[in-house]
């Protein structure tokens, strides 16, 4: 079968599934979107005030969904399912754009048509993506499609087109505006300086055209209430919505925030989540990435991935459809010459999020009854939040992997040769730490305000261990040293698992299932050093299950001791992911 036929088949099958589901599925997300737009199209409500966060492009696509329906109304046909189905067309357009852009970008990097078709197919035939399009009808893919096209044309040095697509993405959702500096610097560093002016000029011109309808409303808003205007601009217009970062995120199931809030520590560390932290961290991350790697097309893709991954992790109100800001870029980063992120990261990410919220819930604002909900095995809150912890940790690992360039890693690895250090040097501090924690909880009680202190102590112990292992002088370690060894990481990981499981056991979880899981985990963890494919897969599964299990136990027990002992474990888990990837890369390259 030639490549064109392969592409046609993928497209045909993907479209078939979507068109099959579209008229037969009604999701409250589509319904909400539809009634919201009805409010604006039919009743003429002000979109700036009623639905901030979406721009004119979004409205135009939705209006295009309305028009055929209204034409049918004129002919005496009033079936709402027609309108509902039409409302999913924007999402379909987004999927097609993303499909094309993924194929072309992958082709640019891999130079292999078959690989590109494979990658685009993984996206287009993915159940999560299909459900997003055909059931939810979410238009988020439209924005990612435009961003991907902007990247594609930027790579091809088609500046004007790239700027137009970036402005279209910005006026679908306002968030991509923050990617403008990345594009500008890329153009500036890789092309002529006048190209940057052209890019900026086209972008601004295009934005002006797209925002012309709002200018008068802005003026009226500003004249009516200046405080309201600024609140609108800063808090809502940039795509956040009113609850971002300022409410107790108990129900947020797709990043760390729901887990943290359920653990009861949100009042203490909640202020680290939200827009300011996101902006700051994305700036730092991009700086690190661009400082470490030379300016190349891959920088554009990785910067975008980091940007959206950080948003997903840090911004409290992450709704399921917003995950589609990350998914195409995460998939693209699995291309070996681009990000070389392991493929199973992508699959683990969407599967875990699918398990958290498959079809049974709408979104943050809307709820509805799904008859099969009671049979969904993941429909209990500790499991959902522990899955979200896993999903968040995966994204964190992805960010780290994007930030670390391979050359730096190899030079760092050559410095480290951990072979014969005593196990006691790791074991004893951990034992002391655990004993301290047990005594503290027994005698001082589980007050939450100790947690930041414990976090600090835990981190210092871990950091010092690494420092000690690498024989740094006077216990001072460089950040680079933390990323230098693999055996130490595995030992540390194993040890932290043992410690957490030990704590779980002494906390009287007298459930034989838990005991069985613990034994299985311990057995599987021992397979860490196995080099076979089976061993590697067991290692991956065990690391995923261990994290989910420990998160789950911590939530149902609400035991501060488990939370505290989790911290070194989380550090080492993250480290193991990054380090394992680096090791496999080095092995392959050697």
């Amino acid at each position, binding site marked *: *079968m*030639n490549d*064109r*036929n392969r592409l046609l*088949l993928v*497209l*045909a099958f993907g479209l078939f599934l979507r*068109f099959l589901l579209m*008229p*037969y*599925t*009604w999701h409250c997300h589509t*319904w909400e979107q539809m*009634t919201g737009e*009805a409010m604006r199209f*039919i*009743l*003429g*409500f002000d979109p700036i*005030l*009623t639905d901030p966060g979406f721009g004119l492009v979004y409205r135009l696509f939705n*209006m*295009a969904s309305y*028009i055929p329906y*209204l*034409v049918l*109304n*004129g002919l005496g*046909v*009033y*079936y709402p*399912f027609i309108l*509902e189905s039409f409302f999913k067309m924007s999402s379909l357009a987004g999927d*097609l754009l993303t499909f*094309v852009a993924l194929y072309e970008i992958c082709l640019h990097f891999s130079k292999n048509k078959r690989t590109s078709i494979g990658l685009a197919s993984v996206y287009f035939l993915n159940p999560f993506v299909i459900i997003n399009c055909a059931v939810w009808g979410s238009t988020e893919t439209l924005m990612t499609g435009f961003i991907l096209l902007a990247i594609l044309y930027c790579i091809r040095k088609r500046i004007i087109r790239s700027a137009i697509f970036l402005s279209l993405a910005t006026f679908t959702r306002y968030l991509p505006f923050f990617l403008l500096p990345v594009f500008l610097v890329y153009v500036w560093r890789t092309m002529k300086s006048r190209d940057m002016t052209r890019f900026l000029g086209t972008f601004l011109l295009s934005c002006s055209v797209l925002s012309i309808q709002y200018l*008068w*409303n802005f003026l*009226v*808003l500003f004249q*009516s209430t200046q*405080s*309201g205007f600024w609140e609108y601009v800063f808090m809502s217009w940039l795509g956040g919505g*009113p609850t971002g970062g300022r*409410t*107790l995120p*108990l*129900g*947020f199931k797709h990043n760390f925030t729901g887990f943290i809030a*359920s653990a009861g520590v949100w*009042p203490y560390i909640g202020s680290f989540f939200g827009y300011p932290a996101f902006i700051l961290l994305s700036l730092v991350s991009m700086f690190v990435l661009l400082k470490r790697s030379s300016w190349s097309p891959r920088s554009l893709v990785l910067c975008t991935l980091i940007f959206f991954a950080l948003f997903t992790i840090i911004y409290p109100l992450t709704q399921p459809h917003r995950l589609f800001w990350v998914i195409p870029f995460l998939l693209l980063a699995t291309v070996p010459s681009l990000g070389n992120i392991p493929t199973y990261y992508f699959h683990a990410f969407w599967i875990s999020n699918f398990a958290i919220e498959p079809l049974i819930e*709408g979104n*943050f*604002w*809307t*709820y*509805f*009854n*799904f*008859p099969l909900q009671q049979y969904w095995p993941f429909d209990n*809150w500790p499991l959902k939040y522990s899955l979200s912890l896993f999903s968040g940790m995966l994204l964190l690992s992805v960010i780290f992997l994007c930030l670390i360039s391979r050359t730096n890693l190899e030079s760092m690895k050559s410095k480290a040769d951990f072979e014969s250090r005593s196990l006691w040097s790791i074991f004893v501090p951990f034992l002391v730490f655990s004993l301290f924690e047990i005594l503290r909880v027994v005698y001082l009680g589980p007050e939450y305000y100790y947690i930041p202190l414990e976090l600090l102590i835990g981190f210092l112990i871990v950091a010092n261990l690494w420092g000690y292992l690498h024989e740094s002088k006077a216990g001072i370690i460089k950040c680079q040293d933390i990323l230098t060894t693999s055996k130490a990481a595995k030992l540390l990981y194993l040890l932290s698992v043992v410690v957490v499981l030990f704590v779980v056991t002494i906390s009287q979880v007298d459930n034989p299932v838990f005991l069985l899981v613990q034994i299985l985990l311990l057995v599987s963890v021992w397979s860490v050093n196995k080099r076979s494919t089976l061993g590697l897969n067991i290692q991956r599964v065990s690391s995923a299950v261990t994290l989910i299990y420990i998160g789950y136990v911590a939530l149902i027990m609400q035991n501060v001791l488990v939370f505290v002992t989790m911290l070194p474990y989380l550090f080492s888990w993250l480290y193991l992911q990054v380090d394992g990837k680096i090791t496999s890369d080095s092995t392959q390259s050697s």
Partner: protein
Amino acid sequence: MSTKKVKGIILLLITLLLLSYAPLINACINQSWSNMKNVPNYWSWKPNFAGQITDLHGANSTDGAIIINSTEQGPSWTVWKSDVWIASFMTKQMRDSGYASLRIKGDPPFGLTPFIAYPGSDWGEELMTQYRGQSFRPLASSLWKVRLKIGNNDTSPQNVTVRLHQDSWTGPELGRSVESISYTGPYPKAVFVDFVMMVSGLDTEKTYYLTIDRVGKEVWLMSRQDSYNYGSCASSVNGDTYDVYSRDLDFKIWFYQGKTPPEASRVQILLNNHTIFNEFTLNSSKFDSMSIEKYLSIPIDIRLVKTLNLINVTVNGAVWRIESIAIEEDYLFIDTPSPFWHSFAPYIFPLFVLEVIVALVAIKEFRKWIKK
């Protein structure tokens, strides 16, 4: 695989797709949406509006479902929660049994302040609607009463029209009710208006639509603040944490099972268990009545406070058990012009032609890309 085979597969998929649409086409031909019942109900994720409950005014639910039972063993419905949702309800079972029980399912716990409309209360007729043009299915009654919460900071009377449509919100009009609103006063900065219209012969199998228009100067807007006010207005019990956004707030405290403190009680609202946030002596004027609920309305300007932690209400020094606290934020009323599509109905056919042209160009470009 040859190109011929690929084309064959694509043709097969198209045929299968058309066959799968047979029930839909059949339903359309018969002009009866009820034929769609043949479609398995687990595909119906859209909420069934019949028999649903609630004004979720003040709901701050972040997880779980809200299930309304007419009796313990009776049928239950999950409420489709929206940020701007105004509704009242009465099921047939409720009308027979005379009471409803509200069961809140879901974890972790969340706050909810429902206005339960009992039979015979002033706004508890058979209606489920929303003020932005929402569909519903009638139960049996021909009396329709709509309650709207309308913000108003204008002293001039305003005309608001509520219309009932068949089939869609642009379909044939079945009934209409017009009310003139005139309201001034510092609190509450919103006024409830009831619209009553008499409509008979409604089909319980059909879906109807309600739209609300206003005439004259635009005075009520579902501004962000407005919708936020409804959707995320903090509402919970003693000891919870609230995040406060801005402006002055209107506290409403619902007392547990209607047990209000005696008059002349000294009421303190404490912040973080020690800071006295508000203190006053209770008298009858402090109480306001809304529906069947008794609540204490406490308007406070706390524009400088960003977060309220651990609110407790004490009466004469002792913590008083209360049902819930609702904090309403002030409205933001802005008279902004409507966008350009406010009335795009006259341009529908030209727009449709334009849309078809754009779609054809897009399809052509896409085909070119595939061929490449």
